Structures are given as C-alpha cells and as structure tokens.
C-alpha cells in the first residue's frame, strides 16, 4: 500500500499546484488520475490552446503550463498513479483514509484532496441495447494491450484520430479489422485517413462508411454486430471484439457516493479552507462549489494554498504552523 500525507485525486493544474503548497509545509503528496498523463483537461482536451489569465503569463500554452507546474513541484517529489480511476474511500482507525482505484491500487493518507475537475474522463458509449452486458466480454473502449487482439476479428467504430490510428495498428496483427464510421469521410489527421483508405483499397481491412452500429449480438460474449448502411440495409458482421472509440467525456463517478454534500455534481466546500462536510477531505478547483465560485485555474491555485494551511493540522496535529514566504525561505526540497 502506498503511504503519503495527502492523497490528491486529479492531476490537473490545481492538483499539481497543491503539491507545491503542501510541499512548502513539508507535506508529501501522491496523485491519482484516470488519464494516463498528468495535466487534466489542459493536456487531454486543449493542449495547444493559449491561456491568457494566469498571473504573470500574458499568454501561456496549456501544455506549457502543465510542463511548468511539473517542474515547479519536482523538488517535493510527488508520486503518481496514472490511468486508474478512483473507486472506493474508506476511513482508517487512526483517522486517516484509504483510497482504492478500480485496478486495486491503494493509497493511505492523512488527508484527501479532491481536485478532479469535472470528474474522470470516461469513454463516450454508443447508445446500444445491452451494451453494458458485453463490456469486458468482447466490448472494450480502449486498447490497453494490443496482443489481446492478435489473430482475432475486430470491429472498430468511430472516425476520430484514435479510431484511425488503432485501425492502422491493429490491421497488422488482427485476423480482420472492420472500421465503421457514421460519415462519408474522415476529419482526422489526413495522413491517417489516407492510410486507412489505402488499407481498404488493398483489401486489408473492411471499411464501412455512412454506416451506424445497430446492435451487439451474442450469448454472454460478443459474436457479431449489426450495422445499418446508407441504404438502411442492416447486415450482421461476425466479430470477437467491438471497440467503440468515440472520445472521452468527464463524469463525477464514484466520488458522488462518498457522503459529500453535492450541488449539481459539484462538491460543496467552506471558503475558509475548502473543506468538505467530511473532516479531512478537501475539494479544490472546478470540482467544488461555493457562493461566487468561478471555475478558473487561478482560483483553484488560491484554493490549494488555503487548503494546505488547514491540511497541516491533520498531518502534523501537534505542531504549530508559522507562515513563511518563499522569498525568505526559498523552496526546501525533500
């Protein structure tokens, strides 16, 4: 089990900066994020967008801000569990917490800080009857280990970059790949789109354009999918796997069941210290709400600073906190 002072859920800009504020007060942090990389929305949704309201930066590219934050917190040696969504939270006898991820990773800490933005990014799912029933039994929303698909029949649905890239990659190892796309053409990277069209021309993949998934069929495991073409003709394609790749969308997920006071999927906090109604759990950044809340990165940074002052009382209950400026004390690395 991983042991730390503060377990931060969400490695977006606010979660990352919380490591800095905690580090100044000698508190160690472990961060958990459902995405495989740090940076949250900035890295996942808009890495190339300029941001204009970070104090001291007239203009900063979203990914650059994340890279700078990574550099800023490096002296405090944060540890990470990436690509795993949090699942359960339990209280320990000594007043701390254990956070468990869906993959079974456990983090024991004295304080939990939720900096989860709008929740964890989860795959968008097509609206098909019984789809959930086949999840893990032939229906999968991400390619974790390509070897799973060696010499198997696959149907990939979607028209974005990840659908194109995985079609190209998996066509070399799978027995057969069928790509289904709703439109007549692809809007993804032109190079990838060309490669996919070439593979189809050469007969190496089956490409169904202007086609829609209608149903997943099987008895316990996926046996086939039904697809409707432009002429409204439905045909059945035999397959071992269906991989819908329709991008990611944020969801609050299991955090909603942790006994925290919520208002429209946001966690209610006190503006004194950004504490939730559960002692020892704080919420900062876009995930929280309070009168006058503004969903701005700079507000999240402020919230992280105040949170850390109060979290100190949980991590070092017998010590008195004296406030020190970095200009006086510098940054003392762990």
């Amino acid at each position, binding site marked *: 089990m991983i042991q730390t002072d503060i377990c931060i859920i969400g490695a977006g800009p606010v979660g990352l900066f919380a490591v800095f504020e905690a580090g100044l007060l000698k508190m160690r942090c472990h961060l958990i994020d459902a995405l495989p990389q740090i940076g949250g929305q900035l890295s996942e*949704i*808009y890495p190339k967008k300029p941001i204009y309201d970070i104090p001291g930066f007239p203009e900063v590219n979203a990914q650059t801000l994340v890279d700078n934050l990574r550099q800023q917190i490096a002296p405090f040696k944060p540890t990470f569990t990436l690509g795993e969504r949090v699942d359960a939270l339990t209280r320990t006898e000594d007043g701390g917490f254990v956070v468990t991820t869906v993959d079974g990773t456990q983090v024991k800490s004295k304080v939990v800080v939720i900096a989860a933005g*709008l929740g964890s990014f989860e795959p968008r799912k097509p609206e098909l009857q019984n789809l959930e029933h086949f999840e893990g039994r032939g229906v999968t929303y991400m390619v974790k280990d390509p070897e799973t698909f060696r010499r198997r029949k696959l149907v990939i649905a*979607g028209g974005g970059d990840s659908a194109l890239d995985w079609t190209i990659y998996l066509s070399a190892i799978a027995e057969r790949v069928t790509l289904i796309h709703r439109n007549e053409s*692809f809007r993804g990277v032109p190079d990838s789109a060309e490669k996919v069209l070439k593979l189809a021309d050469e007969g190496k993949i089956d490409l169904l354009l202007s086609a829609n*998934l209608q149903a997943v069929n099987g008895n316990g495991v996926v046996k086939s999918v039904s697809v409707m073409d432009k002429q409204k003709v439905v045909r059945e394609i035999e397959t071992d796997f269906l991989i*819908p790749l*329709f*991008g990611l*969308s944020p969801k609050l997920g299991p955090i909603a069941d942790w006994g925290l006071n919520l208002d429209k999927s946001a966690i209610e906090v006190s503006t004194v210290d950004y504490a939730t109604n559960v002692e020892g759990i704080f919420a900062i950044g876009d995930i929280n709400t309070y009168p006058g809340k503004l969903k701005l990165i700079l507000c999240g940074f402020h919230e992280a600073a105040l949170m850390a002052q109060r979290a100190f009382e949980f991590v070092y209950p017998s010590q008195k906190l004296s406030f020190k400026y970095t200009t006086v004390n510098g940054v003392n690395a762990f």
Partner: protein
Amino acid sequence: MITFSVEDHTGQVQTLELPGDINLSLMEVLKASDYPIAATCGGMALCATCHLEVLSGGDRLPAPGDAELDMLDTLPNATAQSRLACQIRLNENLQGACFALKAPALV
C-alpha cells in the same frame, strides 16, 4: 425579442424568449436557464457536452465551422442536424427554431 424552443432530456418542450442584444452563445443561454448541461470546455467546441439537434427552423443558422464539425464527427449519437450550442450565437437567426438536447444530462 428572440423566441425559440428547447426540448429537454425528458422530452418536455419549453419556449425561451430573450432580448437579442445580449452577447451570448446558445450554450450560455441554456446554462443560465438551468438546463442540465455541463459545458465542460466553456465554449471551445472541445467537449460536446452542449450537443443538441436542430429539430426545425435551423436554415438561417450559419454552417458549423471546422472545430465544431471535428467534434461532432467523434460523437456516437450525432446526426446531420447535430450542432454544438456553444458555437451558435444568440441572434435573430434563432427566431422560431426548435432544438433538442442530445448530450447526456448533468445530474
């Protein structure tokens, strides 16, 4: 005043009447009117949580731009009438139009 109607996730249709001189997107109007949409990306056409379908009266709306088309292209439930509310400005083009919310409701 601009009048248009919105069908929510439960199928209920409500008519909205707004002054034409407020500089807002349809997404911002829907949020301000307490429709349960997340609008995660704040209007950059990057999250599709304001995805809606034009049921009628959409012929005067300017055609979607590249960013909007790219995002719509990734959605499993998009149709030829799909739009992102954040890319539609509130003006007289909306007069008499009818929209249906398509993005999953925020609970």
